[in-house]
């Protein structure tokens, strides 16, 4: 017995339990398999369940010829929600990823041009990034409704930044990072320096999960710090994910931090 003896919807169910990559590779097996592996009903299962609503929220409409086509187009980041966020799906799983723009964050004193300046960047798809001129109270917070994310998934939140050549004062003391969702909270520290690894760990408070973090390079030319990670169970009631980085204990001035936003993506 072989595959062709099975009813088509049985094969479709099998493929839906593999991955988008496996379904694409299957289309190379033979033309008859390709016809089944390319079906809208299959790729509708790989897309997020609310993909129609997502598509309607995109800033630039995406023309697509099939669900498979839409899946591949959504793997690239697209501006969404009036440009305040970017959306994409992870191509190996179809899970949702979001990036909150700097404008979508709460940055203390960001509205005061003495402290922070806002400008476009050729290296960012958002309209503006925020650059720290000088401040001693550095506090950056982001909030995201967990219902926007894929259920039953572990997510990591990353602050996406650059350090300007003239950056100063950012690594005199470690910054505090935290992530909170529902009853779960994790805290840690990071030195905002490309050359230094974080060394301090806050062990005074329990049972909070503690992180040591450091800056890591991204493939898009920016750097990132993991603010924390959490399991999104997808429960019915809304839970906000609150993420933050702050350095408010040192009374010294800091400057030269460029913030693109906070990215929330599945963690493997």
């Amino acid at each position, binding site marked *: 017995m072989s*595959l*062709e003896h099975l009813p088509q919807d049985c094969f479709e169910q*099998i493929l839906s339990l593999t991955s988008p*990559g*496996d379904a694409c590779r299957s289309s190379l097996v*033979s033309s008859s398999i*390709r016809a089944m592996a390319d079906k809208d009903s299959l790729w509708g299962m790989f897309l997020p369940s609310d993909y129609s609503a997502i598509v309607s929220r995109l800033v630039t409409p995406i023309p697509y010829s099939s669900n498979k086509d839409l899946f591949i187009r959504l793997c690239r980041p697209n501006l969404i929600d009036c440009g305040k966020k970017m959306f994409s799906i992870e191509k190996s799983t179809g899970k949702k990823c979001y990036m909150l723009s700097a404008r979508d964050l709460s940055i203390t004193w960001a509205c005061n041009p003495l402290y922070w300046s806002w400008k476009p960047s050729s290296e960012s798809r958002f309209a503006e990034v925020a650059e720290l001129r000088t401040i001693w109270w550095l506090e950056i917070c982001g909030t995201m409704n967990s219902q926007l994310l894929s259920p039953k998934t572990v997510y990591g939140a990353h602050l996406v930044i650059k350090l300007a050549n003239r950056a100063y004062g950012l690594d005199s003391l470690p910054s505090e990072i935290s992530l909170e969702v529902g009853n779960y909270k994790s805290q840690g520290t990071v030195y905002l320096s490309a050359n230094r690894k974080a060394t301090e760990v806050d062990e005074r408070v329990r049972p909070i999960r503690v992180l040591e973090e450091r800056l890591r390079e991204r493939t898009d030319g920016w750097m990132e710090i993991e603010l924390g990670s959490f399991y999104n169970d997808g429960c019915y009631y809304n839970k906000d994910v609150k993420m933050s980085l702050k350095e408010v204990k040192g009374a010294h001035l800091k400057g030269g931090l460029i913030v693109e936003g906070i990215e929330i993506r599945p963690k493997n």
Partner: protein
Amino acid sequence: MKKISVRTSDGQEFELEENLAMESATIKTSLDAFSRDDIILLPNVNSWEMVKIIEFFTKVQELETKFGVKFMEKKEGRFLEAFQAEFDKDLSDDNLYCLLWTVDYLGIEVLLENLCHLMAERTKNKTVESCRNLFGVQHDYTPEEEAEIREDYSWAFEGPEIEE
């Protein structure tokens, strides 16, 4: 619990627990048409398949109790892994196809999901040639067509693939 009698294509008779029999849409339809005391004939099912189906069903009930999963709830993670660990190694590809066909014919949704999962695990991350052997189909692309598909979906061919 009441037992329902069935006879397979090779003449063997089995007594099924009523709750298993009622999970089969095909058997249930026959029961609605005839008396429950009659033997239901299943000419498309042979005895080794029936034995396996009873085994699967018993295991599914056991795992549901173990993992606290309700009957019609979508099965995930540890449940599916436990089912796979129990049955995967002793089932050839050919036997798995036969069972998939039979369970689909009998309309036993809860088992179909588990068996589809077993087949899906055999498909994941395999090379195209391995999938051809697994699916039992012939290659019918020209080299140009094949190259075009590989290029269109180059991202699907990154990462390790298993040759079998």
